[in-house]
């Protein structure tokens, strides 16, 4: 689950870089990048690995969560006051919301690309611009990316622990890097959506 999660962490910056092309006034660069992502054979192989990683990460996460619920059939009356990593308590819920958004995202883009949903797969630039003109979509988008940030913060340093990479030399830097990553990635996506929504 940690390995699959780390792979997904590497994909997000790539997606963000491509999304920054949406800020250009002409659709060419973004549509070319989208076309390249849709047709280049190496990317197609990576796409299969990416879907595999999502499937493993989600199904493993659900399975572990069910086991965790079963491990405490009777809960405490006084809620737990232990000092814990705050976002770690809600991983299944932040993950579920991010997954719901991901499915919505596939309907808007990926399913058009593979022909399951009507739309022009050669002009995703216009699809994105039209979507961000809908305020409700922007609110959902921003809320989901905020929750993604919460999810990523715990996920980033938690993956190191699960892979056994907890070490006194790099422990002090893992959490700050996790925090930086969890802020900068969602902030980047949010910046693009707000710019397209309010200023284009």
């Amino acid at each position, binding site marked *: 689950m940690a390995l699959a999660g780390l792979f997904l962490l590497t994909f997000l910056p790539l997606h963000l870089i491509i999304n920054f092309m949406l800020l250009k006034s002409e659709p060419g660069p973004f549509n070319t990048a989208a076309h390249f992502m849709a047709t280049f054979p190496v990317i197609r192989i990576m796409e299969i690995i990416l879907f595999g990683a999502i499937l493993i990460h989600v199904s493993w996460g659900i399975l*572990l969560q069910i*086991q*965790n619920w*079963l*491990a*405490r*059939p*009777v*809960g*405490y*009356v*006084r*809620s*737990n*006051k*232990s*000092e*814990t*990593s705050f976002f*770690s*308590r809600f*991983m299944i819920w932040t993950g579920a919301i991010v997954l719901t958004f991901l499915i919505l995202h596939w309907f808007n883009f990926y399913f058009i690309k593979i022909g399951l949903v009507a739309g022009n797969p050669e002009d995703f630039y216009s699809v994105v611009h039209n979507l961000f003109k809908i305020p409700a979509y922007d609110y959902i988008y921003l809320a989901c990316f905020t929750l993604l940030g919460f999810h990523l913060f*715990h996920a980033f*340093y*938690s993956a190191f*622990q*699960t*892979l*056994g*990479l*907890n*070490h*006194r030399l790099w422990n002090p830097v893992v959490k700050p890097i996790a925090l930086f990553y969890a802020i900068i990635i969602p902030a980047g996506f949010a910046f693009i959506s707000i710019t397209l929504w309010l200023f284009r």
Partner: protein
Amino acid sequence: MKLTLKIWRQKNAKAKGNFETYKMDNVSPRMAFLEMLDALNKMLVEEDKDPVAFDHDCREGICGSCGMYINGHPHGPVPAITTCSLSMRYFKDGDTIWVEPWRAKPFPVIKDLIVDRSAFDKIQIAGGFISVNTGAAPEANSILVQKKKSDDAFDSAICIGCGACVAACKNASAMLFVSAKISQFALLPQGRIEAKDRVRAMVEKMDEVGFGNCSNTGACEAECPKEIKLVNIARLFREYYKAF
């Protein structure tokens, strides 16, 4: 001090439990928490009522028997101590104290605040030992051990198996306990010989008896009365990956 106690009462493993409220007057701040429960039990016995059953043995923080969940914390609100070392001076006059048993499927309630922690014994029996011939103690310096590793092994070995890590974890995971037991051997040359079999067997048993999974919340480390660290869990993972 005047205190209100809300204590979980459950006749036996199959009975449905509930919280009973007890009013305590004249609780001295110099009392230990268990002494306060002794005073309560004396009062209950004098009233011809069933005393509160709770586990205890050494009463000096080394046996790990006295686990109970006090006001949302295993072993109470004070870090790095067991319930028996918890002084009543940490509570205020007029406080209401909620006392619950450990809650986890592998730790079923036997009576009131006593739970069956034999799930830990099963994990230990699966591999928490080194196989040596009995006889005279070997010469101490025949196998040299790096001081740092020796210290780390000792820090892991001080786990008293009280179950506070399981009680604190939102997933009822026993990872901190198992990782401490794995680490105390993994760090020493004597423990390396059976390291692969040990970690496989103990993790398999941990899953089999029904503990949850670690999601790295850190509650176990925060509540452990012996301050066992999360680095042990990372070591457990490394040992587990190496075992295949």
